[in-house]
Each structure stands twice: as structure tokens, then as C-alpha cells.
């Protein structure tokens, strides 16, 4: 979107396109570089502290492996395809649970925000269930859904549901009343029309925040979901590493979760910026 402002300042002609394209490219790469730099620095700092700790404490490698050996395992797992397969499995689980949450949570949030009766009825239920950690649902998830995919998706669903509902409620409630009035004097003659043309678009930024946050909480719950009877996924990688006393494998799983979490969040922010 930030286009023509720059172009108009330059002389017209052949050079214009090239220089704006280059201009944009450097701007973009500078933006990416400055966004990524803190993360690289954080990784480096953690690595240094870690290495110093190894040098001073000299622990057995099953308790604390060296950063170099963890990095080795990381790339081993990455190039063998193991890491990618497990990450893909976990991402699929989180994405499906998150989509189900969105399908149920957004309409429910709208209902709560729009109807006083619905709010009185549903809000207390949500407040009661919200503090219960997804971990607590594991036994019931197994009883209800068995040890297949459904139980895992259910646990992540619990983790993703509430942020979506609450942000939707908030977004709809916070729509500036003057925008609704403007919609009405510009021809929205009924509530449905007003909702579709004004209220919902006005609430979209807030709903997107809910979707982003909930993907994050869902992603963080992947361990809980894959703790039980999983044979794939990053949570499985960690649980498996623990069982065979491979703490390097455990750490690789943790690192992968961290990196993917940051990447997905960055994608959401990018989308939100486009829309907002």
C-alpha cells in the first residue's frame, strides 16, 4: 500500500520503476533484518550462557548437552526430514483445532456481544471453564475421544477457544457507535445489513488479534496434546527424547516449537497489517 508517495518524488521515465523497486527492496530487507536481528542475538546470548555453564559445571551430557551437540542433532533431524514431518503433524493438529475454535468461537462471540440474555447465560460458563488448563482435560479427552487424533485436537481446541471468543466479544462491543449511526443514515435499513456492512468489518482487527493469540496458545498446548499416546509430532519428539534419555532431542523439540511459534506469529502480524 505505501506506494506512489515515493515514486512521485522521482523524475518520470525509465529510471523511476527501477529505483522504486530497488528502494522498496532495500526497505523490505532492512525491515526484515531489523526484525530478525533481536531473535538472532537472543539465540546467540543463550548459546554463550549455556556454553559457559557447561564449561563451569561440566555436567553429564544426558543432563545438559552442549549447544554444539544440540545444534548437531537439530540439523541431523532437520535434514533427515524427521523434524519437518513432526512439525507438520503438530501444525496440522493445531491448525484444525484452531479452525474449529474459530468456526464456533466467532459466531458465539458475536452472539454474546449482541444479546444481553446470551451474555448472562454464556459468560459465566466461559469464565468458569477458562481457568482450567488444557492439561486438566487430558483424562477426559482420552475417555471421550480415545487415543486417536480427535482427543489431541480436542485438547488444543480447549486452548484456542477462549481467546477467540473473548476477542470477538470485545471487538463487537467496541465498535464506535457513530459508525453504526453513519451506516444507518447511509442506507443500512436492518440489523443484519448493519452487522454485515459495519459491525463485523469494524470488529475484524480485534477478531484477528484473537485468532493470532489463540494460535499461540494452541501451539503452546501441543505438548499437552501430544503427551499421551502420540507417535508423531514435536510433543512426541520431546516425550520420546525423555524416555530414551536424549536431552539433546528434547531440546531440539523445544527449539523447533519456539522458532515455529515466532514464525507463525510473524505471519499473523503481517496479515493483520494488510487488513488493518
Amino acid at each position, binding site marked *: 500500500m505505501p506506494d506512489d508517495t515515493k515514486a512521485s518524488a522521482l523524475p518520470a521515465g525509465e529510471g523511476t520503476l527501477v529505483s522504486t523497486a530497488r528502494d522498496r527492496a532495500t526497505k523490505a530487507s532492512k525491515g526484515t533484518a531489523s526484525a530478525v536481528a533481536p531473535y538472532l542475538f537472543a539465540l546467540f546470548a543463550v548459546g554463550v550462557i549455556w556454553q559457559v555453564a557447561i564449561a563451569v559445571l561440566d555436567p553429564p551430557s544426558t543432563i545438559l548437552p552442549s549447544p554444539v551437540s544440540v545444534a548437531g542433532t537439530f540439523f541431523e533431524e532437520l535434514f533427515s526430514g524427521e523434524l519437518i514431518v513432526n512439525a507438520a503433524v503438530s501444525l496440522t493438529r493445531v491448525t484444525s483445532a484452531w479452525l474449529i475454535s474459530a468456526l464456533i468461537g466467532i459466531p458465539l462471540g458475536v452472539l454474546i456481544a449482541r444479546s444481553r440474555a446470551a451474555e448472562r447465560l454464556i459468560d459465566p460458563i466461559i469464565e468458569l471453564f477458562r481457568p482450567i488448563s488444557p492439561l486438566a482435560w487430558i483424562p477426559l479427552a482420552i475417555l471421550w475421544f480415545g487415543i486417536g487424533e480427535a482427543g489431541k485436537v480436542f485438547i488444543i481446541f480447549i486452548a484456542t477457544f477462549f481467546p477467540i471468543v473473548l476477542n470477538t466479544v470485545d471487538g463487537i462491543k467496541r465498535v464506535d457507535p457513530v459508525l453504526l*449511526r453513519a451506516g444507518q*443514515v447511509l*442506507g443500512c435499513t436492518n440489523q443484519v445489513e448493519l452487522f454485515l456492512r*459495519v459491525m463485523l468489518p469494524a470488529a475484524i482487527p480485534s477478531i484477528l488479534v484473537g485468532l493470532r493469540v489463540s494460535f499461540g496458545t494452541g501451539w503452546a498446548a501441543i505438548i499437552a496434546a501430544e503427551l499421551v499416546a502420540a507417535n508423531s509430532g514435536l510433543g512426541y519428539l520431546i516425550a520420546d527424547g525423555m524416555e530414551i534419555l536424549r536431552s539433546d532431542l528434547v531440546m531440539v523439540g523445544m527449539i523447533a516449537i519456539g522458532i515455529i511459534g515466532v514464525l507463525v506469529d510473524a505471519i499473523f502480524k503481517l496479515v493483520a497489517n494488510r487488513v488493518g
Partner: protein
Amino acid sequence: MDMSQPPGEAHRPDADGRAAIEISRVSKQFHDGEGGVVEAIRSTSLDIAEGDFVAIVGPSGCGKSTLLNMLGGFDSPSSGQILVDGKAIAGPDIQRGMVFQDYALFPWLSVLDNVTFGLKKSHSRSEARDEAMKWLELVGLKDFARKQPKHLSGGMKQRVAIARTFATDPRVILMDEPFGALDALTRRFLQQQLLKIWREHRKTVVFITHSVQEAVYLANRVVIMTARPGRIKLDEKIELAHPRKVTDPAFRDTEARIFEALDEELAKTFSLETSDGHAD
């Protein structure tokens, strides 16, 4: 409130000079939330003729915004009635356009899409676009059609809002302190633009302001409202020829006369506030 029919000729006021808006003995009370009742407007009557530009001026809390909200259909009188073209107001309607102080542009739509918003039902897509571009050109913002509202200054936003309202060709345009948030220069520019558009299109305009100078500069009729409960204190025709000059002696005389009436009301508001022990 069938929107599908365009603002047809059948709706035009009768040749007998019947007022476009008839406000008769309208009162409005609010509950103040503490068990008390606030009387915002008391038994106010006002007829506004087709094509009039009426400015309503008064101290804050005089009920002028309440009156405008009732005209807009967002609120209804506690007693009395308001007729527009002989019909009671049943709710907000595209026939009564409104320009808000804080612009109320839809931030998710481009400038162009904001202006076509009200044209979706009455125009085809390309007609709506052409009509919107015509109005954007009229307010000097044709080149900003593709921009998002957040990239515009306050004055530009209000010009878009004016274009958006005039584009729907309403019978009446209600303006709620539309230039109140703008700096003096921008304000002057927008006043001139609004006046130009009004003189070309002769819409019935009800314009709320707290600036006497703005009222005298724009309107052909200035109505002063009293402090709470709001009533009409002065109803003055402004016969000065356009373009008006604020430095013109006749302009200054008119302004002075209106100020005098307003000053009495301000004194009352002030003593009311001090006797109440609190201000708004």
C-alpha cells in the same frame, strides 16, 4: 422505509410552501441514571423550509445535539412531534443524511468505497463509482480515492464525509458541529466548500455549531437555543449576500445582535452551574 426507490419527484414538497421539517412542541427528557430526570428540550417548535440552511447555536448542554439526533431518527421526542415532508420520523433514513463531528469514516474502506457506501442499493457498481468520483472531485479529493482514511488529515476526512453524505442525495442534511475539531484555516476552507456545494444543490441543511461567526457566515437562518431546558430564544433570518465577509459592518452587526442574545443565555448557564454546585 423502502430504500429501493430512488428519491423520486413524488416526494418533492408541495408548491404551497409547506415546510420540509416541522418540529412542533417537542420536549425531551432523559433519565440521568441517578433516579433524576433531565429536561433537555422543552416545548420547542420550529419549521424549516425546503432549501433552508439553518444554523442552530447555543451553549453546551442546550439540547441542540438532542434535537439533531431526533431529526436523524436516533432518538424520539418525549412529547410533541417532528414531521419531515409531512411524515413522522420512524428511525434513521438515507433521506436524512448526517455529517458527524468526528467524521465517522469507515476505516476499513478506501475513500472511494466510503463514498459509494450509501449508493450500493440505488446505483449499479459503475454508476456508484462515477457518482462518488464526481463528489470527490467536487471536494477536491479525486486523487485520494484509493487512499485509506487513516492517511488523510482531519479536514480531508470531513470533506470525504461531506461528499459521502451529499452523494446519496438526501432530502435533508444534518450536520453536528462538523468543523468543530478542525483548525481555523481548515475550517474556513471547508466552510467555503460547503457553502459552494449548498448554493449549487440547495439541500435543506440543519447545522449545529457553537460558533456564532460560523452560523452567520453559512446560514440563511440562525436559531439560538436557551440553556437547559433548551428552547428557542432567537430565530433570525440572515439576508446578507454571498460571499459574506466577516469584516463587513453588516456582518458584524448581525453577529453582535446574536451574541447579545447568546450572552444572556451563557450568563444563565453559568449561574445554573454554580447554583448546582457542579459544571458539566
